[in-house]
């Protein structure tokens, strides 16, 4: 057993965070202020998500942490280790085995179920921030449901690029009321937000928690003549041949060579295990990496 209190935070703090989470679930999409604590990691690395995860974990939980869909990047590995050390819980890379999934900027490809909690790391929770810098004003706009400004951003996109060019952090309206920033997930993931799992959003530096309860209506904002489109890179994964997943572009040489691979590493791996092989893939278990 470690010398830390279970999951690092003291019980009073976890209680305070749980209160904020419950309030957030009661008012879907509403940003609940909370007394964010100093965490042993820099702001921007997921201090908000870590605190929400810490408040949700029980000793029986199995944790999965992903960063841009990948289980093996620095951010994901360090947060996973952090909870292994401070909470002595089981960790996994398999989406279906996890009960709590902390994520940075992706929703796993595999549909989540009712027994799972998805925790997002949020850099800037206020969707109106870059249009209206005054927090007093944006709060009022949320309270009075004055969301015309959000469409101004999409309007600007269309007049500059001929289409809605916002590709991530695409604003959504939750249950017909609050406009919410879904954290910088690609807009490809937006339709998945109407899911069976609980979704919690933690912004550490900005001291806000918000939430989407299971099966809640989440609508991506758009115009009548420019409807929302969940977009992804054209092509299929070079390793597992999936053409329905969100793809990362990987530059492979300095000659303009590139390949597309699934951003969700666990999903890609399980497909390769099942025998799907992409253009540059090798049968599962035979590659060097």
């Amino acid at each position, binding site marked *: 057993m470690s010398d830390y209190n279970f999951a690092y935070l003291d019980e009073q703090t976890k209680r305070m965070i749980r209160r904020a989470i419950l309030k957030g679930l009661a008012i879907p999409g509403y940003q609940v202020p909370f007394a964010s604590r100093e965490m042993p990691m820099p702001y921007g690395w997921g201090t908000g998500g870590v605190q929400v995860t810490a408040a949700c974990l029980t000793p029986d939980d199995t944790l999965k942490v992903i960063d841009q869909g990948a289980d093996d990047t620095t951010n994901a590995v360090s947060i996973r280790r952090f909870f292994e050390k401070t909470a002595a819980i089981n960790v996994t890379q398999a989406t279906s085995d996890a009960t709590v999934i902390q994520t940075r900027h992706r929703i796993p490809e595999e549909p989540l179920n009712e027994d799972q909690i998805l925790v997002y790391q949020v850099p800037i929770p206020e969707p109106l921030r870059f*249009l209206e810098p005054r927090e007093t004003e944006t709060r*009022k706009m949320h309270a*009075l449901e*004055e969301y*015309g*400004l959000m*469409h*101004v951003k999409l*309007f*600007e996109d*269309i*007049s*500059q690029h001929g289409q809605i060019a916002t590709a991530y952090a695409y604003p959504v309206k939750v249950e017909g009321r609050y406009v919410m920033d879904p954290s910088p997930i690609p807009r490809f993931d937006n339709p998945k937000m109407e899911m069976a799992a609980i979704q919690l959003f933690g912004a550490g530096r900005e001291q806000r928690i918000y939430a989407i309860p299971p099966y809640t209506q989440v609508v991506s904002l758009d*115009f*009548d*003549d*420019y409807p929302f489109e969940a977009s992804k890179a054209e092509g299929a994964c070079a390793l597992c041949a999936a053409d329905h997943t969100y793809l990362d572009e990987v530059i492979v040489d300095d000659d303009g060579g590139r390949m597309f691979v699934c951003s969700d590493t666990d999903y890609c791996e399980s497909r390769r295990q099942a025998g799907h092989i992409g253009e540059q893939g090798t049968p599962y278990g035979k590659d060097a990496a």
Partner: protein
Amino acid sequence: MTPLLDVQNLSKNYGQRIGCKDVSFDLYPGEVMGIVGESGSGKSTLLNCLAGHLEPDHGKVLFDTKTDGLKDTVTMSEPERRMLGRTDWAFVHQHARDGLRMGVSAGGNVGERLMAVGARHYGNIRAQAADWLGRVEIREDRIDDRPTAFSGGMQQRLQIARNLVTGPRLVFMDEPTGGLDVSVQARLLDMIRELVRDLELSAIIVTHDLAVVRLLADRLMVMKDGHVVETGLTDQVLDDPQHSYSQLLVSSVLQV
């Protein structure tokens, strides 16, 4: 005929200092009211109280709302007041950058009020924005430029277009020609006069420039130290001022 705006005993103090005191007047549909006075006479305070930007200490501001008739905007709920602020009212600031979003294109600026009242069809919003840019003499090919790329006069015209696009009935203008050179001022005044006549707008124009009110206003109110010292038809007040301060004001205008 019911007045569009009925102001009764409006007062606003800043601590011990008087902002404006006991101001009462009526404004009828289609009428343009000028408020003149020197700096610090309470013109802008009064205008901000009328437009709901400041809360007055005493008095009523009754506005003829479309649904409920005359209603006190001081005591109405904030959502209602803000709704008025983006539908029936318009506010033209002295400095265009106070009233514009400088980081948003001209089209977006004009379209904002439309989207704020629920327009969700890009093509229609853009067409309306283009139409309004034309009406304020901004070429349509500037629609995607940001206001930062516009001259002062164009910014002011853009601000006017942005305000008038939702068809307001009452326009508040705070020194609309301040800081513009005279030839630009003249064109802007011409344009405002045309718009006011065409759209049958009511307007309250605060200015210290007597030429502006001479051209635009039907009626005039002269303020000094927070008090209204003289009211009357514009020509009457300017040609035959009664109060000593009005006389001073009129005689202070430089003759070229």
